[in-house]
């Protein structure tokens, strides 16, 4: 049982944002109840716990809600400081660097990724893909500088930035498959390509990273909903 009260996580299996706190809880060896939201209908509990954004994930610790995936990850790190490895680096400058790249991923890189599927026409699609590839090249460079030869951004163990980026790997694979692309190209981003394999194989990640097959099926479902004409 978690220190200070029960831990629950409101989420959905396909969401990369939900995966973030799940990985963090696993790293800390914490047990929690996973409250799966039904796609298309938000539960009373979710609406009550996150009235501002009405989004998943929401962590409930002794019934007190924490919202926003990266805020939750930092909370998990700070609320259970002596369980498992530290998720954020200890040096303030390294912390600022990790936060910077996590913000870049959320504000620039991930939107460019989802931009590929949304792009209308060949030219727009190519432009969207170029943006993602450019972003990956920046992240490859960052990985080299931050990991300093160690297996993860966080060093020997998975850390904040690994979680922030790694949660999208399932969706990267789906995009590669549906678009016929190679984004994590060994030739172009060798550091990230190998890091991705290590990340997905890690015990804190394995159980919560959805299978590409399942995710691709789910993607078809939401694309159909997205492209469907608005209800009369």
């Amino acid at each position, binding site marked *: 049982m978690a220190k200070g009260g029960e831990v629950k996580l409101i989420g959905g299996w396909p969401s990369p944002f939900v995966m973030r706190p799940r990985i963090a809880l696993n790293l800390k060896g914490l047990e929690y109840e996973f409250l799966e939201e039904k796609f298309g209908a938000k539960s009373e509990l979710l609406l009550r716990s996150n009235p501002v954004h009405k989004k998943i994930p929401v962590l409930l610790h002794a019934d007190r809600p*924490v919202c926003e995936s990266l805020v939750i990850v930092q909370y998990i790190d700070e609320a259970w400081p002596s369980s498992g490895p530290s998720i954020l680096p200890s040096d*303030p*400058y390294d912390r600022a660097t990790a936060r*910077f790249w996590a*913000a870049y991923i959320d504000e620039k890189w991930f939107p460019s990724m989802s931009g590929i599927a949304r792009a209308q026409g060949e030219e727009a699609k190519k432009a969207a893909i170029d943006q993602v590839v450019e972003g990956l090249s920046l992240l490859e460079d960052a990985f080299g500088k931050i990991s300093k030869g160690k297996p993860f951004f966080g060093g020997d163990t998975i850390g904040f930035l690994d979680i922030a980026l790694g949660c999208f790997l399932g969706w990267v694979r789906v995009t590669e498959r549906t678009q016929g692309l190679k984004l994590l190209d060994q030739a172009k981003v060798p550091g990230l390509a190998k890091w991705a394999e290590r990340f997905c194989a890690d015990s804190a990640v394995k159980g919560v990273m959805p299978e590409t097959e399942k995710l691709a099926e789910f993607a078809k479902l939401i694309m159909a909903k997205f492209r469907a004409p608005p209800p009369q």
Partner: protein
Amino acid sequence: MASASLWNVPELALTSLNRLIGNLLYIPNPILASPSNQKRPPQHIKLHYSSSTSLLKKQMAEEVILLDFWPSPFGMRVRIALAEKGIAYDYKEEDLKNKSPLLLAMNPVHKKIPVLIHNGKPVCESLIAVQYIDEVWHDKSPLLPSDPYERAQARFWADYVDKKIYDLGRKIWSTKGEEQEAAKKEFVESLKLLEGELGDKPFFGGQAFGFVDVALVPFYSWFYAYETCGGFSIEAECPKLVAWAKRCLLRESVSKSLPDPEKVHGFVLELKKKYGVE
């Protein structure tokens, strides 16, 4: 001397520039040289009477520089945090139409201000810089609370300010008609939500001025511009929030960091002219 070409080279990292300076046989001595016959380097490159790069680096030790732009609410956040901690720093005003090589080198990803440079190392993104300042100078005026749950709440609300206020405010001064009305409505709703979160506390963090206060109060300097462009009164809609802002302004760290709202309004009028907004 090759100074002219040196200063104009874009995207040259400060460290490589230092190395170049170190290798020059002659470095202008600010004491001996008279301003009239010396080509003065841009303010962001400090020269010292020394040809050794290691001495240059030592003189940069504990150096805090802020690359900023006076009307930027994001820049104001960092100014407030530095003032709260009593940190001496070098303020560098950027011309955003002509970004300095230093800015481009220190923030190559976004090329935006504010950038905090501490001992030559850049910290970008205003809330990240504020947290960095809070963590490095942790023995004075803590901005984030110590309790993990309260820290999470502070981060959540600062993130909310980031997601809503700037973009909605921008829409208010840069659009007309239906679009402007929608932006005004959503803007007021967001402020009311924040007002609700503030409740009867003197500050968002409770008794002490903190992270969310730092995140939000800069936008108060833009309220007059929003009100004038949008034809509405923020004080009428959110009196408690305006009272909170005035309370924050009693702190020197805030009053010295926020520009005059009339100046900001003047700046917005210039932007409107530039973008051809009625």
